[in-house]
């Protein structure tokens, strides 16, 4: 789960990281009020869960409250890479002398947390890593020892941070690591961390991602999820206990198991179609889950055919077939459907599907056969 910039920065400030004074506005009028209260020039920043806001015109400087109102009016409602701007952050503007990068993330390959610093702040760190990886100073962290002071000194030394700022850097890096650990973050990033006009370090932009598996022990963070920033179907799927990701294609996929779901998506592409979604209904393929999944798939207007691919292991294919047929009693489907059941009692499962004589529904024996049938059906629909 990704947090907005303003949410990340509020969280940072709880861990002694200095951030600019600012507040979130949902309307130009609110932006005016906030800018007036802050006094002096402000930055109006679109709050969307995607990068490249600056380039898209979603970050603007304003000298007066009137100008802040005008800028907020321009930015609110803007579409940035498919994300509609519903909030703007109004921050006190800072004079920027230097831009630094500081971030903590999970290093999957090393199986340890990793803290990184770079003097090339303000740029996308992945871009820095691609162009000049030597500009990034890295320290792996033993999860039992935590981040040690000498490691922070290594970072400060490595990016040639003026020595008079090392003390501030200590406080910020320790805070950022604590924030990462205590939030179960997979990423906690300050970019840029600036040296401001008064010569102090200040976190003017930030980003956090929280480990979804750990949200159960952070109810206060779980509440921060911005469901307006994701497709409605993904919100509904989460509530139904389904794993769903919306894609752009025309073949709705319903599969049990994440790996098999990905393989099924890939198959539609291999045979000239494209998947409308990733959807894992989990084990068992019970009627209520199938029905919930069907509703979500059918709500996507791009879908022209539905492909079921279920492996019956411990839950037998005949049980799965019954689940699908029961769900079809509940949810009316006018689109062509291809059902492929494989595994335990697959002949019996296929027989049940065929004998039900559901209009537009056919069974398929192999995954290749199922994908081809689904692609053909979507084309002629």
């Amino acid at each position, binding site marked *: 789960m990704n947090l907005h910039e303003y949410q990340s920065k509020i969280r940072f400030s709880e861990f002694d990281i200095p951030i600019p004074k600012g507040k979130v506005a949902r309307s130009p009028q609110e932006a005016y009020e906030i800018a007036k209260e802050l006094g002096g020039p402000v930055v109006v920043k679109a709050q969307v869960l995607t990068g490249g806001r600056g380039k898209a015109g979603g970050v603007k400087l304003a000298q007066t409250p009137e100008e802040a109102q005008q800028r907020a009016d321009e930015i609110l409602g803007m579409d940035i890479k498919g994300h509609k701007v519903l909030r703007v952050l109004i921050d006190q503007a800072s004079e920027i002398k230097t831009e630094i990068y500081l971030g903590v993330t999970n290093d999957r390959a090393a199986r340890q947390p990793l803290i990184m610093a770079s003097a090339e702040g303000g740029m996308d760190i992945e871009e820095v890593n691609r162009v000049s990886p030597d500009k990034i100073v890295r320290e792996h962290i033993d999860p039992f020892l935590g981040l040690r002071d000498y490691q922070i000194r290594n970072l400060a030394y490595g990016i040639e941070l003026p020595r008079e700022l090392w003390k501030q850097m200590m406080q910020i890096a320790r805070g950022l690591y604590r924030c990462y650990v205590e939030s179960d973050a997979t990423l906690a990033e300050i970019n840029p961390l600036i040296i401001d006009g008064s010569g102090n370090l200040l976190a003017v932009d930030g980003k956090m991602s929280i480990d979804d598996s750990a949200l159960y022990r952070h109810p206060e963070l779980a509440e921060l999820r911005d469901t307006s920033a994701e497709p409605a179907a993904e919100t509904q799927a989460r509530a139904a206990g389904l794993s769903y990701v919306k894609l752009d294609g025309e073949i709705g996929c319903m599969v049990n198991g994440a790996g098999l779901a*990905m393989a099924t998506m890939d198959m539609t592409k291999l045979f000239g179609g494209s998947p409308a979604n990733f959807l894992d209904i989990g084990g068992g393929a019970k009627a209520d889950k199938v029905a919930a999944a069907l509703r979500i798939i059918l709500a996507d207007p791009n879908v022209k055919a539905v492909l079921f691919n279920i492996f019956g292991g411990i839950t037998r294919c005949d049980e799965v077939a019954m689940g699908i047929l029961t769900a079809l009693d509940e949810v009316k489907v006018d689109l062509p459907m291809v059902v492929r059941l494989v595994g335990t009692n697959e002949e019996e499962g296929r027989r049940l599907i065929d004998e039900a004589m559901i209009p537009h529904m056919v069974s398929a024996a192999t995954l290749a056969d199922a994908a081809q049938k689904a692609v053909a059906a979507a084309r002629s629909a």
Partner: protein
Amino acid sequence: MSILANKDTKVLIQGITGREGLFHTEQMIEYGTDVVGGVTPGKGGEWVLGKPVFDTVKAARDATGANASVIYVPAAFAVDAMYEAIDAEIELIVCITEGIPVLDMMKVRARLDHSSSRLVGPNCPGLLTPDQAKLGIMPGHIATPGNVGVVSRSGTLTYEVVYALTQRGIGQTTCVGIGGDPVNGTSFIDVLQMFEDDPETERVVMIGEIGGTDEEKAASYIAAHMTKPVVAFIAGQTAPPGKRMGHAGAIVEGGSGTAADKIAALNAAGVKVAEHPEQIPDLL
């Protein structure tokens, strides 16, 4: 021969009295696995499915001589269950549980590195040596003994492939699901090495997916160390970047972990990569 487990493996079940644990323990026993007991704190002294239940892993180990444990406890307690099994010096720990926080797993990993235990999983279907033992939730009857080793990050996709192999009369030595989490106990390389060393395994099937760089590392390992032919499949070619595909570890981040990169690395290592799962038996 086989790897990791066989008919002589003495298996404990952590969480034996829970719904999942009970259901799958019954299936494991039915398959012929030597389940010697279970652990549920607070229920020591009871009997379940004809097996003794203990309060702690240490007590269970001392009483039964167990050398493997399968963990079916909920995510909030699974981390403690893994530490307990490591502390009791259980040689093989299989954690089925899904949804364990990554920060916890990084600590478990660090602990494992200083122990004599091997962990398979978490978030995995476990492993199965046909007609000998099944440690986990794989459906037993889809596998048949033979000389192909199977290793995978997935669950049902593995069953799909194993079933297809069995249907074509191609049997397996051991099928291992290493799990779909970003940080896990056993990597592709660990299992590839075991298959390379296992005299009965003649060929290997490796099923990977997007996210991380374990498949790329496995490719380098195969090129440098493996004499046995490996056939691979990588799921997630159509997955968009930045989106998690069900498994916590199945995500393309910062341009890293794409299916294209993994396939290119495997091809360069001389591994035949199937375009779709049903091609795997042909490529073998």
